[in-house]
C-alpha cells in the first residue's frame, strides 16, 4: 500500500516535470496555427479558433528556406564527419598511447573547452578572410572541424576500455587504427552517439557565425531564415515565426525521437558487457 502510493507520487512528480518540458513545445505548435490576433489574448487560448495552415505557406515564402535546408544539412553533416574523425583520432592518441607532451596537449584540450567560442570569432573571421574563404561553405565548416569537447569526451570513453582487450586484439593482429575502428568506437557507442546528438543540435542551431561569414542566400543556413522574422524595431509576427520554427526544428526532433531509443539500448549493452 505504502509502496503503491509512493509510486503514484513519483509518477505525479515525473508527470509535472514532463509538463514543464512539454509546455513550450505545445505552445510552439499551437501558436504556429493561430491567427495573429490570437497570439496574445488576455486569457491564453489553448487551441486556435481556426487552423491557419496558411501560416506555413507565408513562413516558407518568407525566406529561401528550401535552399537553407539543403545548406544546413550539408554543413552540419560535414562538420559532424570531420569532428568525429578528428576527435576519435586525437582521443585515441591521448587515451591509449604514451608520448612526450601528452599531458600538455591534454591540458590544451581541456583549456580549449573553457574558452567561450565567441572569443575565437574575430580571429577565425580574419583567418578565413586571409584564406579567401569568407562567404563560402568552407567558412561555415572549417572553424568547426575539430572539437575539444568531442576529443575529451571520447578520450574518457576510450580510457574505460581495458588494456587486456587491446593486448588480446594485438595477439590477433588487430593493432593501431584497426583497434580504434573495430573495438574502441563500437565499445564507446553511447558516447559517440551522445556527442553526435549534441554536435548536431549545436550546429543546426548555430546562428551568429553563419550570419557573420555569409552574404548570399545560396550558402546560408536555416537559423538565419528564422531570425528574419524577428526585428528590433517593428513588431514580430509570432505565428509565422512559430510556424517556421516548427519546420526548422522538425528534423532534429525526428532524429532525437529515433536515436533516443537506440541511445538507451546501447547504454544497456555497454552496461552488460562490463
Amino acid at each position, binding site marked *: 500500500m505504502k509502496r503503491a502510493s509512493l509510486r503514484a507520487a513519483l509518477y505525479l512528480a515525473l508527470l509535472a516535470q514532463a509538463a514543464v518540458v512539454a509546455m513550450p513545445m505545445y505552445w510552439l505548435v499551437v501558436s504556429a496555427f493561430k491567427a*495573429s*490576433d*490570437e*497570439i*496574445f*489574448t*488576455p486569457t491564453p487560448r489553448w487551441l486556435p479558433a481556426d487552423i491557419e495552415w496558411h501560416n506555413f505557406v507565408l513562413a516558407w515564402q*518568407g*525566406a529561401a528556406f528550401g535552399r537553407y535546408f539543403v545548406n544546413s544539412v550539408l554543413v552540419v553533416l560535414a562538420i559532424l564527419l570531420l569532428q568525429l574523425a578528428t576527435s576519435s583520432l586525437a582521443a585515441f592518441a591521448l587515451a591509449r598511447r604514451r608520448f612526450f607532451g601528452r599531458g600538455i596537449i591534454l591540458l590544451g584540450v581541456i583549456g580549449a573547452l573553457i574558452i567561450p567560442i565567441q572569443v575565437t*570569432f*574575430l580571429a577565425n*573571421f*580574419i583567418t*578565413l*578572410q586571409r584564406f579567401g574563404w*569568407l562567404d563560402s561553405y568552407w567558412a561555415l565548416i572549417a572553424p568547426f572541424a575539430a572539437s575539444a569537447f568531442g576529443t575529451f569526451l571520447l578520450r574518457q570513453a576510450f580510457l574505460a576500455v581495458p588494456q587486456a582487450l587491446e593486448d588480446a586484439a594485438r595477439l590477433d593482429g588487430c593493432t593501431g587504427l584497426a583497434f580504434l575502428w573495430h573495438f574502441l568506437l563500437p565499445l564507446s557507442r553511447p558516447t559517440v552517439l551522445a556527442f553526435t546528438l549534441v554536435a548536431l543540435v549545436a550546429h543546426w542551431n548555430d546562428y*551568429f557565425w553563419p*550570419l*557573420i561569414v555569409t*552574404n*548570399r542566400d545560396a550558402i546560408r543556413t536555416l537559423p*538565419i531564415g528564422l*531570425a*528574419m*522574422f*524577428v*526585428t*528590433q*524595431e*517593428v*513588431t*514580430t*509576427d*509570432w505565428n*509565422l*515565426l512559430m510556424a517556421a520554427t516548427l519546420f526548422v526544428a522538425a528534423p532534429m526532433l525526428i532524429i532525437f525521437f529515433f536515436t533516443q531509443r537506440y541511445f538507451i539500448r546501447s547504454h544497456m549493452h555497454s552496461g552488460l558487457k562490463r
Partner: protein
Amino acid sequence: MKMRRIFAGLLTAATTAFAASAVAAEPMQLSFWYPVDLGGGLAKVVDGLVGDFNKMHPDIQVTATYTGNYDVTLQKIQASKLAGTLPDVAVTEISSVPVLGALGAAQPLDELIASSGAKQFLDRFWPSMLLNCRYGGKVYGVPFQRSTPVMYYNKDAFAEVGLDPEKPPITWDELTSVAQKLTKHEGERTTRWGIELPLEAFNWFYYAITYANGGETLSADGTKVLWDQPKNVEALQFWHDLVNKYKVTPPYTPWNDGPQEFAAGKTAMVWHSTGSQAFMRQNVKFRWGLGRIPKHTQFGPPSGGGNMLLYATDPARRKAAWTFITWMSDAPQAARWSIASGYLATNIASWDRPEMQALIKGHPEVLVTKAQLADAKAEPASAKYAPARDILNALIKDVLANKASLVPATKQAVEEANAAMAR
C-alpha cells in the same frame, strides 16, 4: 516549320544578347546590407526597390543582403572592417553613425553631397531626420528606414468607456486620466491595460518622456549622461507612477509583443514605431487611430530607425554607391518605401506625390506621423554610448519593477555610465 522558326528566333535573340553583353562594360557590382524584418514582407519591398534600381541602371548591379537585426548588422560591419571586407552601402541604426565614423568604417559624404547640389540635396529631407546623420562635423548618413514612436489607440475601446474616439490624449495629465478609464480589472487581475510602453534595447520611450518634459539625456559633447537631472528624474517618476501609482501600464512589456497585445485587445493604447503601421493595418480588427506621443512641456518624439551609410573608398565605387543612395532616398522611392512599410517618408517632396495623397485619404492617421516629423528630436549617440545604453535599460527595468529606488539608483547608474563612456 513552326518549330524551326521559333528556334531561329531564339538563336537570333541569344546572339544579340551575347553581342550586347560583349559590347557593354561589366556593370559595377555593389553590395548593400540591410537589417529589416521579413514577417511583414519588408525584405521583399527592399528586394523590389533594388531590382528596379538595377533595371534602370544597367551599369550598376546592386546585391542586397539581409544582415540580421540592427545590433548584429553593426557587429558584422565591425568585423568586416577588421577583415577588409566592408560592403559598399549598409543600413544601420541611427545611433551607430558616430560608432562607425570613429571606427573609420563609414566614409563621410560631404564631397558627394556637394556634387549633388550640397544644401539643395540636404534640403530634400525633413531637418529632424538629418539630426542623427552627422559625426565630427561631417555628414555620414542618408535617412532611409526612419521612424518615430507614435501612440496607437483603440477607438472602439475609447467609445466603450465614453471617451471621444477622435481625441487621443495629448498631454501627460490627459494620458493618465484616459488610461485610468481604459484599464479594466477582474479582481486582482488586469484584463486590459490602459496603455503599454514597450521597452527595447534603445530605450526609446525613456527619451520620449524626457524630451516631452523638456529634458536632454546626453551632454552635447556626448561624454556625460544626464539621467539625474531634475527633468529626467521627473520623467521617469511619471512612468513609474503610470506603473505603480495609477496601475494603468505593466512594469515591463517586451518590445515585439506590444503591437500584438494591442491587436488582441490586451491594451487599449500602445506606443510603438511608425514602422509597425503595416502590421496594424493587416492585423487589427477594430477601429484604431494614431496619436502623437503626449507632451508635458513640449512635443519631442525621439527619432529612430536606420540610415544608409557608405563604406566604399574607391572613387568609382563611391560614385556608383552614391547613385544608389540618392535614388533610394529620392521622392518616388521614399514614398513607395513609406507606403509599404509605415516607415516615415523622410523626403519632403514625397508627401506631395499622388500615391502618398491616396494613402492619406485612406489612412488619414498617417498625418500624425507627418506632424511628428516636424518636432522629432535626435536619439542620443556617441562613439562610446553603447554601454550607457545597456545601463539605462537595466535602470528603467529595475525602477519600474520597484526593485530599485529611483533617485539613488539613477545616481549610481549615471556614475557607472559616465565611467564606462570615459574608458
